[in-house]
Each structure stands twice: as C-alpha cells, then as structure tokens.
C-alpha cells in the first residue's frame, strides 16, 4: 500500500513532464538569421484553382539582397484573406534564398490577394503582393470547355498531350488572359463571336462558329471563365439606369 503512492506520483510526474515537453515544442520558433532588401516572386502567382482548393503548384518567393542574390535564413510570412490557408504560413528561406508554401483558397470564387512579407535588417517590412484565382462552378465548367474546344488555338503554350496550333495561324487568336483586348469586349460581343464565329465581328474566319455545338449555358460558362482569368482583371460594367 505504501509503495503504491510513490509509484503513482512517479507516473503523474512523468506524465506532467511529457505534457510539458510537448507544450514546450516550439511551433514556429524560427528566428531570422538573414535579412534581405527585396522580396520577389519565383513562381506560383496567378494560378487558377477551384474554390476552396489548393493551388496546383506551390508559391515560391525569394528574398534578395542589394545585389539580387538570394539570402538564406530570412523570415518570410504569408497572409491572406480569411479562409486562405498556407502550409507553412511562415519560415526561413533556404540556401538559394527561396521560401515555398502551398496555398489553398477560400470558398468564394474570385481573385485572392496573398501577401508575402519579410523584414529588412533595419526592421522595415517588405511586402510582395500576389494574386490567385479561384473558379466557381460556372467558371470551372467554362475551363473544361476551354480545355476541350478553345485552348488548342487560344493558348500559345504546348504540352506533351496537346500541341498548340497558335503558331500555325496567320491571324493570332487572343489568349484568354489578354485582358487588355478582351475586357473591352462586351458579353454580347463574346457571345456573338463564339456563336457565329470570327466573321460575326469582322474577325478572322479561321475562328469557327460554335453556336450549333455548344449550348447557351456552355457559352455563358466559357465567358465566365474568360472573365475570371483575364489579366488585368475584368470589372463588370455595372448596371446602367435610364435617366429621365
């Protein structure tokens, strides 16, 4: 009987120590060992994903010194709107000055700004703003249609599975991210050109009409996609009210 109490006490103290030890584990006790003067994007900006989903590629930023060389051990922190998740949210740059994080966006379709920041030696905060795009149902459907019907000509980049036809065309199609041109076109114009082909707007006859192939819903979805990925971003013209 007497022996049991010290045993219980030992067990308790071991458990207490274990508990303390776990709590003592630093979750993000990374301390900056290097400082840079600039923060630049290496890759991962302007990616497209579905709402709530992780971006297909990680976001990589680089901390540079005055000579544009990567700085190791600089602390980089990411932040974004509520619901945007980073894994990891902060950390130190590697030997080439880069910090990599995977990002998942929130549940609303649209553009998300994420901010990477680091601190210079003088304590000045350096920010880098990146933009990522989340597609909702309609834009996602448009994206699928784009991959099937449009991208072969409208995307100059080739993949092993899909060789781009862009270079073969005399009149170059507009990539859908080309906001400078496409933002000026109204939805009605886009519907016309997709439905009736290039000649409908006095454009290249090599753009065939899809009005008998795609449904109205599908054409709407395509336009939603085009608007979602345009760069600079497309702004809705807003409602116009008749004046007396």
């Amino acid at each position, binding site marked *: 009987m007497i022996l049991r109490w010290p045993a219980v006490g030992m067990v308790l103290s071991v458990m207490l120590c274990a508990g303390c030890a776990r709590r003592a584990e630093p979750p993000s006790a990374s301390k900056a060992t290097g400082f840079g003067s600039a923060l630049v994007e290496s890759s991962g900006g302007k990616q497209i994903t*579905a*709402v*709530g*989903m*992780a971006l*297909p590629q990680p976001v990589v930023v680089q901390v540079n010194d005055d000579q544009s060389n990567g700085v190791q051990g600089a602390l980089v922190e990411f932040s974004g709107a509520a619901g945007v998740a980073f894994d990891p949210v902060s950390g130190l740059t590697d030997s080439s000055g880069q910090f990599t994080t*995977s990002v*998942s966006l*929130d*549940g*609303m*379709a*649209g553009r998300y700004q994420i901010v990477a920041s680091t601190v210079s030696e003088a304590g000045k905060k350096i920010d880098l703003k990146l933009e990522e795009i989340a597609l*909702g*149902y*309609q834009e*996602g*459907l448009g994206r*699928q249609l784009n991959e*099937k*019907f449009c991208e*072969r*000509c409208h995307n100059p980049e080739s993949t*092993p*599975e899909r*060789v781009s*036809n862009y270079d*073969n*065309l005399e009149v170059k199609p507009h990539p859908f991210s080309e906001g400078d041109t496409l933002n000026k076109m109204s939805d009605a114009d886009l519907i016309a050109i997709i439905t009736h082909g*290039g000649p409908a707007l006095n454009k*290249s*006859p*090599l*753009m*065939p*009409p*899809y*009005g*008998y*192939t795609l449904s109205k*819903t599908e054409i*709407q*979805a395509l336009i*939603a996609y085009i608007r979602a990925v345009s760069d600079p971003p497309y702004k*809705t013209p*807003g*409602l116009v*009210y008749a004046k007396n």
Partner: protein
Amino acid sequence: MAGNGKSGSLWQRLFGDSVRAFGVVSVLFLISLAIAPAKNHFSEWRHYQNQYLKMARGRGEAITLQRHFQGDIQQIWVPDLAVVDRCTTCHVGLKEASLADVGRQPFRKHPVIPHTLDQYGCVICHRGQGAATTVEEAHSSTLAWEQPILPAKYIESSCGQCHQGEVAGTPQLSEGRRLIGRYGCVHCHTVKLPDGTTLKGTDDPPSLSHIADKTTREWIYAWLKNPQAYATTATMPNFKLRDDDARDISAFLIANSTPRDGDTLTLSQKAAADPTAGASLYGESFCASCHAVQNAAGNLVGGDVGPELTRVGNKVKPKWLQAWLRNPRIYDPGTAMPHYRFNDQQVATLSGFLLAKTDSDLLANVHLDPATPEQIAHGKRLVADYGCASCHEIGGIKKPENFAPELGRIGSKPINQLIFLPGMPHTLPDYIAGKVRNPRAFAAGLKMPQYSFTTVQIDAITTTLLSLNERSHTLPPSLMMAATPQSSYEPAGKAGQLMHDLACFSCHRINGHGGDMAPDLTWEGSSVQRKWLQDFLKNPNTLRPVLIRRMPKFNLSDGEINELTDYIMTVYQSPAIDRDSLPLAGYPQVQVEQGRQLFYSKYGCQSCHIIDTKADKGYIGPTLTQVGSRLTAAWIYSWLKNPQTLRSGTIEPNRNMSDEDARALTAFLITQKESGTQEAKKR
C-alpha cells in the same frame, strides 16, 4: 437580526401595501412580457438584415434591392426532400444578380449553378442545419446538430448524391471516382450504390499463382517493402511490412507458385541488347502509348494503361519476358496488352532492350536465405491477414468476403462513431481525409496500407466518399441520376476473338465498351473505305502527326487482316448512313472547285486540317491529304452536316452547313486521293 430587518424592510418597501405590490407586480409582468419581443429585436438575423439594408443603400441599384428585400424569417420549404431552410433569412442577396461583386458573406449573390435555390434549398448541397436561425446553430457542429457546413472544397460531393454518373463541371468528383477505381479501393471495401450496383475497380491486379515464372523472390521482397521504389506510378500501396514479414510473404508466394505451360520461352537467338534497334522497335510498336518510362530528366514519358517500365529489367525473368512479348495471353488471358505478332528476332531485340532497363540500387541490399517451412507457413498467414487475395488471385487462398468496412454510406457516418486523432478538427471530411492520408495512424495494428496520394488526390477521394451518404440512398427516385450502365458488348465469332487477342478494346470503344484513347469505332464500317482499312491494319500510319499515342503495328497476316476488315465493314455500320449513296469519284470540276473555295474561305477548315502539306498547317484535326482514299463520301457528307451525331463528344464544330455546301465540300474532299498507291504498285 439586522439582515432580517433589512430584508424585511425591502419586502415592506416593495410590497408593504396593496398599491405598492400591485405596481411592482405590474412592472415585473411588463418586463417579462418584453423579453420575447426584445429577443426578436436583438436577434442575430435582424442584425444581418439591417446590415444588408445599410449596404444596399450605398449601392447604385438601392431601389431595386430594397424593393426585393423581405424582412423577417425567410424559409425555403421543399416537402418532398424534407427541406426547411431558413438560410435566406441572413443570406439575403443570394438571388440578386447585381450582388455578384460583393466580397463578403452573407450578402453575396449565389454563384451560377444548374439548379435554383427554390428547387432544392441549401442544405442538400451545403449541409448544416437549415432550420436554425443563428450562425452557430446553422453552420457549426453543435450538441443538437452534428452536420456542420461542408467546406467549399468538397462541395462537388453534393452533386454526386444524385448524379451517380459523369456530370459536367465536377472535375473533382469525377477524379475521385476514377482514383477509387484505379487504386482498387473497392477490392477490400465494398461500395454499394443507391441503384443497387456496387462500384467496380478499374485496375487489374495480376494473378500471383504463377509468379515464380515471372520474377524472383528478391524482387518480390523489394516490391513488398516499397512498391513506389520500383515504380513511382505503382498503384500497389505500401503495407509497411517488417523485413521478416516481407521475407516470409515472398517465400510463401514463390513456394505457392505453380508453373504455367508456355509462359517461358527459349529463343533460338540470344536476346541482343542492341539499344538502337530495341529503342526503335519500342517506338514503332508504340509501347509508350500504354507504358511509361522515366527519362534522363526524371520525367515519366508514356501512358498509364500498363505498368511503368523504368526498372523492368530488375523485375522480370528473361524467358518469361520473351514468352510474354510473344503472346501475353498465355500468362494472363485477360490482359490489356495486345498480342503483337513479333517474330523471334523482334522478341529478342525488344526483350534485350527492356532487360537493360535496370536500377543497380534496387536489389543491391536484398539477400535472402533459402526459405524454411516455418517462414512459408508464416507468410501464408500474413497473406491471409493482410487480405492480399482481395486484389490478387493467389492459388489456394480464397478471396476474403467483407474484408474492410462497406463504404456506401460513409459520407453520413455519425461523428460519435468516429475516433479522431489528437489535434484533428472533429468533422467527417477531416476524418475521411485523414484516413486516406495516413490510415495506420488511427490505431495500432490497423491493416489498411499506406497510399502515396497527393493532397489534391486526397481531396478528390474525400469528395467522392462524402457523396456516398444516407441522402443519396433515400432520394425520391425521380432525382436519382443513375450512371450509364457499363456496356458488356463483345464482338462475335472469329473476328471477335481476333479483336480480343489484339486488345482493341484497351484503346478503342465500340458500342459503349472499351477505352477512350483511340477513336470510337462503332460506325467504322460506314466511315472508311475497305482498301484503306486493309492498308492501315497492315501498316498503320498516323493521321495525326502530333499525337504521341498511336496505333501500333501488330504484324498481322493477310488472313487476319481480311477477317477483321470483313467484320468491321459488315457489322460496324450506322443505320443512318448508306455507304454507297454517294459515289467516290466523278464529281463535276465546278463543284470540286466550289468545295475548295468553301474549305479555304467560308469555313476556314485549314485552321485545323491539312490538305496541302506545303501551305496548310492546321494540326488539330486529322490530316486530310488522302481523305478521299480513306473515308466514304456518304460519311464525309453526314459528318459535315452534323459531326456530333456520328461521334458524340468530337470537337469538330457543327457548322449547320447547307446541303449544297456539304455536297460541294464532299466533292472537294473526295478528290484528295492517295497519290502513292500507284507508285507503290509499280514498285
């Protein structure tokens, strides 16, 4: 005493005489009456409605928004589905088209979906508690309600409740369903679907009954220890076996293996490791259409129908490989691999090329002593314990029934039946994702193996599993959108056997059965000319030069080619097309010229097709330089009129062509004949 006197005086002060008492009681009564309206007035949803009105006032379309606004508690009631959703009480702007640009909830317009809000309400897709009128009760898991709002990334699971088949716009759901089939989850977990069927695996785990003919015990050991070390694309999961266990299972599998007649071959010529000839035969045979190999840069090049071949030389025994290349159907009658008619020389070259694909590190540290009977017996027990026979056929071991839990309603499993890991959010999606990510973490001694899924794949699988829920089983029959049943079409007779032998259905689809790598051949007999088909089967030259995946050359005999051609030309005919209704030649020059004009100017066909190899550059559709020798005029005409009716899903746009234009274009295209034919004959 003093206290008594004080309380006494308080009592006296309030209820001392009847007038006072009446006054106090009245005030108390009034206050208690005011509680209910006050609770209503200060309720959360009123706060949101007031905020909404405030926001609306600041907008250009304020008048419209205010006119549409209805105060008080709103409700969507769908009796058939037992839906009572009051979400629109706070989410006021869901139907306002102009509020699509609002960045904060609960005021944003609902994104465009194929259904209306009034049709199904909210919780059918979003989960949560529809009848609740506070944020906490509606969105979170509470004591009274355990279904919280479904995170947006799993929202496609809700489409899958009704849509059992492929549905447009839900890539994640489709991907999850594909993964569950491809990684063979359903071999251990039965998944009963609402329509009474069960999910089928799309993988083809090999039989292990004759494994000793094919590979060595050392390779089996290395593979069991880590399948992905042999091939990064391997779908076999890692069972995290201890060295002893891997040793004993490999001992059992080898000891249990029985030889199969004809699955090893002794060639008259020694397998020549001529890398140039081997590589070109590998290329000509389009092995890469199905098999991937890692190139020097570490990228996988090739398809994923068959196993990756990067280190195949470590795996297969030379004599087995040669017999396999000669005729794979002897070892595995149901294989997706075609029976190429390779001669001895070709088998030697190709096997030499493949056997040279080794990784010296793979088996370097595997040294196994001869197996003892105890080890073999222990291996057999382990094979039964881990349920290896759920996937693989193993001689003498029965496929276990109900080896793992049935998953037909996993998407609505009550939270109180789940065991969560420390630190894990207590929600069903997190539980499912955690299980898929790292199954063994949940308890000691669990058997589910470790898969190497990416986060995106785990999300997709979780989405699909969440769609398998109670609601999907209890929907009104009118809402159940069953998947198209798998076609069991098999061609008949000698030609049918030949098509099976050549594994045509691994790539081509006919009458709904088969793969989608190559064109659908359901109406091939109406489409092509007999002579072209014969030549093509003899020597398939690609119609689309930019494609990586192409039709292989099977080295067929003339007899086999005739058999196949006869069958295809007779059986695979569209009832809508009379092959002989339009002639293959003899169109007036004027009409041909008109067709040329239409081709190049009105319809701009050259943007995707090539007629003149020097001038045209379109690489999207098939090359049409010899289309007049390939297709029938009747097919060309019908195709021009409406391509999608002939091959649903084709990307050739329907141009709504007039009969006259279609006839002229047909006349032009049918004159594009093969020029090499005559020369070839002369030679």
